[in-house]
């Protein structure tokens, strides 16, 4: 497979995952806005922070106002991480790797692009938001289903999966870090009083509210939530879960190519570290510090993958 193709597959899935995350963040923020107007403004600000868009947002606007944030994240063309920009890039990547995709997968992505372009053509009002978001998620789900149902499980698939899980781990780490900053700036507060609305919004933004309740009922504690999102290997957006998937796919790649790769060593180290650490230890050493280290390791892993598989010339 061409290095460029592997890069296209990897980034296509990263971008699709990014769309998923942005819509979930918006969904969670919207719910907070509905239930608690005091938190609303800071919530809109915090999702801009989570998506790493603070500077570019403040270039355009002075305040975090709901419809502005919504439209900035969904359809602002000058924002390279708006859903509209990201689906464009994802589809461009799909066109570049057209020869590595099944017809069904290509058409699903192409249709996703067509649909999003049409549903995001005009500014989105708060009233229309829930429907628009669920439409985007549905299109995204159709792409996932087409990939899952029609792609051969070979190196092509491994690169798709790598992109998905690198991006997902990144997203989970980011939302935790942003919320940690906003809500629990000092260690002394960790584990003490808890703002239910805020924690609920974290769980919602990783689609895990229901799953959390299955496991822990109504016992909502920040420690348990952090544990759930970082270490619970049953939770499909936890760091451990993502790292395990990344590890597996890198294992298959080294089997297929009959070579060892330095990225695999790095991923393996990251995974083992997650397996052998307790949530108490993470909180004691500092959640923020932990997440910052994780994010920088994740970026290093990304770079390593790019070089190991000849993504760029």
């Amino acid at each position, binding site marked *: 497979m061409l290095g460029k193709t592997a890069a296209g597959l990897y980034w296509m899935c990263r971008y699709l995952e990014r769309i998923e995350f942005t819509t979930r963040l918006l969904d969670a923020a919207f719910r907070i806005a509905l239930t608690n107007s005091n938190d609303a403004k800071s919530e809109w600000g915090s999702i801009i922070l989570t998506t790493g868009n603070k500077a570019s947002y403040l270039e355009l606007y002075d305040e975090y106002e709901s419809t502005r944030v919504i439209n900035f994240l969904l359809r602002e063309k000058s924002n390279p991480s708006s859903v509209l920009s990201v689906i464009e890039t994802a589809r461009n990547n799909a066109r570049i790797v057209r*020869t590595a995709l099944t017809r069904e997968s290509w058409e699903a992505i192409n249709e996703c692009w067509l649909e999003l372009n049409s549903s995001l053509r005009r500014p989105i009002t708060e009233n229309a938001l829930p429907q628009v978001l669920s439409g985007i998620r549905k299109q995204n789900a159709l792409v996932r289903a087409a990939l899952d149902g029609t792609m051969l499980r070979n190196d092509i698939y491994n690169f798709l999966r790598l992109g998905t899980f690198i991006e997902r781990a990144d997203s989970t780490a980011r939302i935790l870090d942003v919320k940690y900053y906003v809500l629990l700036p000092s260690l002394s507060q960790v584990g003490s009083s808890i703002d239910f609305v805020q924690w609920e919004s974290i769980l919602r933004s990783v689609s895990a509210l229901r799953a959390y309740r299955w496991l822990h009922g109504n016992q909502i504690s920040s420690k348990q939530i952090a544990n759930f999102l970082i270490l619970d290997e049953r939770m499909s957006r936890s760091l451990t879960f993502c790292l395990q998937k990344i590890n597996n796919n890198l294992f298959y790649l080294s089997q297929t190519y009959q070579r060892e790769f330095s990225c695999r060593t790095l991923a393996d180290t990251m995974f083992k570290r997650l397996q052998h650490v307790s949530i108490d230890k993470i909180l004691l050493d500092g959640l923020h510090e932990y997440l910052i280290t994780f994010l920088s390791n994740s970026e290093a892993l990304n770079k390593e993958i790019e070089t190991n598989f*000849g993504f760029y010339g």
Partner: protein
Amino acid sequence: MGSVDNKHLNTEVFDEMQTAFGPRVPYEQFYEWFKSENHYQLRKKPKELDKFFRKTGITFNVYGESDGEERLIPFDFIPRIISELRWRKIETGLKQRANAINAFLSDIYGNQEIIRAGWIPEELISQNAAFLPEMIGVNPPGGIYTHISGTDLIRVNDEKFVVLEDNVRTPSGASYMIENRETMLHMFPELFTRIPVKSVSNYPEQLLQILIASAPASATATPVIGVLTPGVLNSAYFEHAFLADQMGAELIEGTDIKIIDKKIMMRTTQGYRAVDVIYRRIDDNFLDPLNFNPNSLIGIPGLFDVYRNGAITLANAPGTGIADDKAVYSFMPEIIKFYTGSTPILENVETWRCSEELSLKYVIDNIEELVIKEVHGSGGYGLLIGPTSSKKERAIFLRKLRANPSNYIAQPTLSLSTVPIMEKKGLAPRHVDLRPFVLMSPTEVKVTPGGLTRVALKKGSLVVNSSQGGGTKDTWVLEGV
């Protein structure tokens, strides 16, 4: 009901489907079906078709349009139908022509026997911008220059198809030929169970076979094939990706390639791997910035040196443009005679070479009747259509013509045949041409039955180019009719 509008059937123009007494033989079965269909439903089909094309991403980019907007090539679902009898002649004619052109290229870049023998003037080649001196003495693997050609034919009456243009550089359109058929199969499957239409779906497989058969001697038993594209922004990118996909070939860009140890290597996830055959969809000029246009950003520096050493096959070979040059075109009857020993099965359109004094005088005297073309123009640009031109346009063109006569040829205004398209009010005849695709390897020449029918969608228009509002049709060659 068959709301056929016969009023504007011009008696001079050959309509391939209709006569005053009903449909012609090849169209009988189709017409039967057409009459029995619900026309209210049929009129909705174009919208469905648009959706279908958009969904599958069969689009082309238009340069200079805002936001890289993608457009569809309009598709009309009334097929263009050719009987097997007529097709057989086209097929043998195309094979004869392809063989002659390949032999011509081999000669022109070799001993130039045809010039020595006095069959064509020396300056036709030496003074021609399409002649690529770098190719002199280069031996393409297997002796093949024109692996793929797309010859433009027009039909002037029931029996006669004539060649309008030979396209032997990087002809495009094969993907539309295949996708048009796919679309028809999808929309009207019942037509294909009733009517014996020859399949076009094995074109990519045949293309792959001829590319493999043309691999250089240094290639392994399973040669690695790459389709070289300028990239995702190119107007024909869909076709490049489509053909690579269908052949299971790599879709490569200049940035994927490195020359290592005088070999063409592509960057893969497992390091650099050799490429043996490149089906290139980049013009000669941009192919190699070291040997040709130094400003090319899409080419592969040093590619031509590797080619000269015989370590890579380029399909088509560089320098083939000399064979589809419009000035050379006018000598095609001589060229065919010289290399095959027989007269052309498919005739040329009568052509006046303005470089010749007598012809120039004739052209100037009859400018209102003729189509005058720039020798190196393409895509319907740089031409004057005498009968529809204004006095002012003719005056401007005359000035250009007198200043540089050898840059022009002239042809009679042709009566291109028509085939109906589906309009809101029913069937309406529109002018068409035909581009069949000819594939050539060291051992065989193959022609896919049919080809791409291009249709001028505007009433009376003769311009079929997609860049100027032309559309396409599915082309059927009937089995045994």
